């Protein structure tokens, strides 16, 4: 896996966790994609389908809970909610992100967050 692929995978994971923690309600895959696009004002481009492998990995890791909802024979959707373990992981990831960006900003001589 290339560095770019690893970065994309890592950032997508934390972005999904952050979105679901923020929304604090169950969301399905397409809805998550639409919301990410809306929040990023279409500046965050990725193949939409790549959200699903990440959602499934997070589900397997117990960071998301997934549940199929809908009527039998009608439209059924898989809804995801963040678990307590997911919230703890998100907090760790965000802390790591803040530390990393602060360090890089210092190295680049860029004004960081106050």
């Amino acid at each position, binding site marked *: 896996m290339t560095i770019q692929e690893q970065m994309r995978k890592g950032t997508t994971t934390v972005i999904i966790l952050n979105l679901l923690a923020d929304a604090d309600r169950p969301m*399905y*895959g*397409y809805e998550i*994609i639409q919301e990410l696009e809306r929040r990023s004002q279409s500046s965050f481009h990725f*193949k*939409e*389908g*790549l959200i*699903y*492998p*990440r959602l*499934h*990995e997070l589900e*397997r*890791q117990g960071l998301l809970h997934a549940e*199929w909802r809908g009527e039998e024979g009608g*439209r*059924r*959707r*898989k809804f995801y909610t963040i678990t307590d373990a997911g919230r703890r992981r998100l907090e760790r990831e965000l802390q790591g992100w803040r530390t990393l960006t602060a360090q890089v900003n210092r190295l680049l001589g860029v004004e960081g967050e106050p």
Partner: protein
Amino acid sequence: MSGIEELLARLRAQMDLDAETEHEVLAEIRDHLEEAVAQARAAGLDERAALAQAVARLGLEEVGRELQAAHAGWGTADAVIAAGLPVLCALVLRWLAFAPDGTALGWPQLLSRPAFWIVALGMLLIPLLKFERWRYALAIWVLFWGLTVLFVALPALHW
């Protein structure tokens, strides 16, 4: 076959998953495509263009590859639980089934021990809760009972 069904067939051909997982994955992607197409149609595209746009945004090739990678194989923790739990539980049962002098206890004495029920319940619930798929849990139970026969039942018969 509709356009979406053709795409799902292409996606299915890229993956080698158990039937239940494959069914769920394809249902989720179908839902995605149907909604994306409906949205594109509402924006004025015809059926063909709407489907083409939905597929381009989805990234069919990459999705198939990454879904396969996400679902193929177990993580280290899964493998340890799947292999280690039945062995551990069977060994605990063996320890419970034999008195300190090495003679085998009868079923009434064994069943009266809370530890027996804790092991039995743990062996029943942990695989089911951990793996969710009943087939995986069943495979682990089969391994557990096989080991129990080997470690506990057969030695007890010889006493």
